[in-house]
Structure formats: structure tokens, C-alpha cells
């Protein structure tokens, strides 16, 4: 009987468990999860603060998931080292667990720059885990002045989640625009305006030089007085376990298309892994939930002796703020085709006859059709590109392709 060990208890771990069990019903699965919660949906923590969900509905899988899948779970426990030669994982209490196949799904952690005087700030929070959200939740009060450092996905979702529960929110970022990882300047300006109309203040192209208790002294010379500080600058992959065991890491743990690391019998998946980005044509950490599941699932299937490759991962995001929804995917490389009206924007990027990326703001219907064009590298001369530029629809395909899509098992 095979012994599987999974380090991590998030979405990548669930994907791994379900992948293993799709092949092997018998093997012994051990899960080492640092968080003392049943697996939950991390991207929902802002919705939790907003009151749109609760901890019960945030459960990513039903109660009994581990039991039904025959998993032994160490909750609230940490793996401290991997010995790739003896095939053992050592836990924080010194206990050792043997594995035949190991999956490292250890996620990421908030990156906190070394701001001067940060230790003088009493009420500071990260915004990544359920415990982070619960701590912030407990600290919120109606007149609170909140400073959020970081205008990325995490910082802005946090702002949306708490807006109605605090007095004011200021978001600062070193970048000159909001959501700089997924939006270009023109699109970011539209989104920023919308956020400002909804009461969020911005200090962009600016950063904190030092903190003095509840005051941030900005590089630009200004100051921001705050009651609560949220640090949402970015995240770092938890790759040390594999690095220390002799595996190759870059920004994340290097994996191939089977999610195998450079260590024999060791796989990695999720935010800690650096796999191939098919849109970029290079390796990069794609810290998005669908990727975590699919990488985990791929790892699990291969660990159990199946054959699975995940070679068409692309960056993609669907996110909304105060009723304005946007979707982005791929890379913004090549010729741009724009269709903009009434505050909505559709930007498609085309290179070498393929769709490489898109930005959609306020016009997101059927966007998955665009995403599939990117993922499958569909030659655009096989679709009606004039229609494609105006809307995502199944009309862009030939009748023959449609017959396969809608007349067959897919």
C-alpha cells in the first residue's frame, strides 16, 4: 500500500487528494496542515467581512471530506524538513512520517517589507488567511481610519469588504496604478475612478517611508493618520522545505508539467510552485485558485501512478469591486484590438495569429470562450475574428466545430 504525504491543507491539497483517489482508493494519505481550520476558500475572506458569506458556507469541501477520502490529518501542525533520501518528513514536534510520494502544497505567506518603525504600529494586519480576516473583523469599528498598503487584488478586495464598516480607507502603492499585476494603465484608471466613487482614497506612486505609531510618513512628504493598518504588499512562495532538501527553486518550487519537482518522488502544487505559464511561454508562479486545484489534481494523479500533464496554465482573474466586474487572462503582448463604450472596455491582444491575452471591464459575458482561445492557442484564422472582437460567443466558430462542441460528449 502506497503512503502519500501532503504538506499543506488548502485547495492544492484537496486537488491532490481527489487526484490520488481517482486512481488509488486504498493508499494511505497523510495531510499536514498548519491552519487549524477545515479546508476553506481563502479568496472568500473579503466576502466574509462584507457579510456575503460565513465560515460555514466558506468550507471548500463538505464536513467529512477527509474521512470519506481516508485521510489522516495533522491539523495545526507544521512540517519542518524533508529528507529526500530517506523519504521522510519531520514535523514540528520531531515526529517523522515516511512517504512513498510527497506533495508540497505549502502555499505562500505575506511579504512584509522592512518599513522603518513598523514595530511601533499596534493594530496591523495581513489579509490572506481566515485567521487574518477574523482578527481584522474583530478590530473594525465604525469611525476607523484604515490604511491599506498595496493596491493589488488582496488590498482592494479587503477595501471592498470593509468599506461599510469603517470610517475611511486610504490605499497606497508604490506602483502608479491599481491592480498593476493584471491591468494596463488605461484600464486601471477606469477601475480606480470607480473605486474612488465608492469612497476609497488612493496614494499611488507613493510608499511609506516610516511609521510612527498610528501615523505613516509617506515618501512624497505627506502623512496618513490611521487606526488600522493592513499590509497587502504581496506574497512569497513557501519553497524553503524543498530548497533545503536540495530541490531546485526560483521564485517558487520548480515543477514540470506533471508537477514533479527536481527531487525524486516529490511533487509541488499551488502558490508555492512555479510551473509553466503557457501564455508567457516561461515558468512563473501563478497564485490563483483554479491553478492550485489543477496543479494539485495533476500531482495527485501522477503520484498515484496515473498519467496527467497540466501544460496549458495561464494567468486569469475574475474580480469585481462595488458592482463593476472585470476579467483578465494571458499576457498583454502583440497588437491590441479595443472595443470601448459607456465605461466598459474590451481589449484583446493578438500575436502571431493567436489570442495572447484580454482585459474585459464591465463586459464579461461568455469570457471563457476567449480564455479557451488562449489556453488552446487556437489559430484565429479558424474563427470569425471580426465577431470575436465585438463579443465572446459561439458564433465565432465554424458550424463544424460547433457540431463537435454541442453535439458530442466533451
Amino acid at each position, binding site marked *: 500500500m502506497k503512503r502519500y504525504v501532503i504538506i499543506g491543507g488548502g485547495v492544492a491539497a484537496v486537488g491532490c487528494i481527489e487526484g490520488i483517489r481517482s486512481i488509488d482508493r486504498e493508499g494511505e494519505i497523510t495531510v499536514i496542515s498548519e491552519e487549524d481550520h477545515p479546508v476553506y476558500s481563502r479568496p472568500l475572506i473579503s466576502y466574509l467581512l462584507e457579510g456575503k458569506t460565513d465560515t460555514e458556507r*466558506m468550507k471548500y469541501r463538505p464536513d467529512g471530506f477527509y474521512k470519506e477520502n481516508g485521510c489522516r490529518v495533522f491539523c495545526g501542525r507544521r512540517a519542518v524538513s524533508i529528507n529526500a533520501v530517506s523519504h521522510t518528513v519531520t514535523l514540528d514536534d520531531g515526529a517523522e512520517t515516511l512517504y512513498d510520494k510527497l506533495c508540497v502544497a505549502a502555499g505562500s505567506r505575506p511579504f512584509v517589507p522592512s518599513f522603518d518603525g513598523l514595530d511601533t504600529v499596534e493594530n496591523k494586519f495581513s489579509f490572506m488567511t481566515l485567521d487574518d480576516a477574523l482578527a481584522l473583523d474583530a478590530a473594525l469599528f465604525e469611525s476607523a481610519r484604515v490604511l491599506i498598503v498595496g493596491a493589488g487584488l488582496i488590498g482592494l478586495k479587503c477595501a471592498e469588504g470593509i468599506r461599510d464598516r469603517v470610517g475611511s480607507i486610504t490605499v497606497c502603492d508604490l506602483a502608479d496604478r491599481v491592480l498593476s499585476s493584471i491591468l494596463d494603465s488605461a484600464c486601471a484608471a477606469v477601475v480606480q475612478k470607480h473605486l474612488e466613487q465608492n469612497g476609497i482614497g488612493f496614494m499611488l506612486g507613493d510608499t511609506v517611508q516610516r511609521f510612527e505609531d498610528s501615523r505613516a510618513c509617506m515618501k512624497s512628504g505627506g502623512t496618513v493618520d490611521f487606526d488600522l493598518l493592513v499590509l497587502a504588499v504581496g506574497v512569497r512562495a513557501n519553497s524553503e522545505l524543498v530548497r533545503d532538501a536540495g530541490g531546485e527553486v526560483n521564485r517558487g518550487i520548480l515543477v514540470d508539467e506533471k508537477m514533479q519537482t527536481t527531487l525524486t518522488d516529490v511533487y509541488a502544487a499551488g502558490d508555492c510552485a512555479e510551473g509553466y505559464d503557457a501564455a508567457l511561454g516561461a515558468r512563473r508562479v501563478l497564485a490563483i485558485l*483554479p491553478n492550485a486545484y*489543477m496543479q494539485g489534481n495533476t500531482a495527485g494523479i501522477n503520484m498515484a501512478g496515473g498519467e496527467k500533464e497540466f501544460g496549458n496554465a495561464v494567468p486569469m482573474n475574475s474580480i*469585481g469591486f462595488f458592482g463593476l466586474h472585470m476579467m483578465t487572462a494571458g499576457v498583454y503582448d502583440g497588437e491590441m484590438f479595443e472595443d470601448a463604450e459607456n465605461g466598459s472596455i474590451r481589449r484583446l491582444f493578438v500575436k502571431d495569429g493567436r489570442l495572447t491575452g484580454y482585459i474585459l471591464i464591465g463586459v*464579461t459575458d461568455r469570457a471563457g*470562450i476567449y480564455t479557451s482561445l488562449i489556453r488552446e492557442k487556437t489559430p484565429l484564422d479558424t474563427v470569425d475574428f471580426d465577431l470575436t472582437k465585438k463579443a465572446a460567443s459561439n*458564433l465565432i466558430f465554424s458550424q463544424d466545430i460547433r457540431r463537435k462542441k454541442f453535439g458530442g460528449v466533451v
Partner: protein
Amino acid sequence: MKRVYVNEEWCLGCRLCEYNCAYANSGLKDMVVALKDKKIFPRIRVEGEDRITFAVSCRHCTDPICVKSCIAGAISNRDGVVRIDRNKCVGCLTCVLVCPYGALAPGEDGVMQKCELCLDNSCGAPACVTGCPNRAIVYEERSETQ
């Protein structure tokens, strides 16, 4: 398993499937009360223009990417039928981002909804197919190689 398949050349573009879907999922007994003067949010949508029309609903893929991508764990695959737990959905639209068929759209309340083959409502079999006047959509078994 039985799925809904499209015979595009037979579609008249009459949109009866959309109305029957909205009615079947309204939970109401009276079709007039359910639909009259209301903007409908059917789970099947007729796409197309003058000459070409066809109805698109969930393909119930054998390896559904929406299930793997849902950030809330709200979409699941039970016995081949892809279902959504609307109570867990937060309306992030990630399923719309990934569905290669463009087969999902939010309901009136902004929460996602999708075709569940009318297995859980009072119809028991897809109302869109039952009401289609020209067999432009059918509900049947087809093999993966067909």
C-alpha cells in the same frame, strides 16, 4: 449519461427553450405569473443571428473546468451532472471566466445558476427539450466517440 445535444440546423431561434427553462426553474405553477412582463434569466441561451441560431446550455463535461476553478467550492460533479450550490456562490464569475462554452450566466440576484438538467425541479427531465417544437435540442445518450 443523458445530456442535452444541439441540432443547429433545426433551430428556429424561437427561444421557447429559454422560456420553458425560466418557467421550470421559477418554482411557480402558473407560467403567466412566472414569465409575463419579466426579464427572464434562463440557463439555456439562444445564440446567433438571422440565419444561424442554436441553444447553448451546460455541456456537463466529463472533466469540468468550472468545478476545478470555483473559488467557493460551490460547483460539484455528482454522477456526471455538474451542479451549483447557490448558497455558497459569491458571484465572483470565475466559472464564466473558464467555461469554454460560455454556458454559465448569473441569475437575477447576481448569484450564478446553471443547467442541472431539470433533475431537481418538478420536471425531472430538461424542460427546454420537452418544449422544443423542432427537435433542435434533444436529451439522449451519446458515446464519447460519436
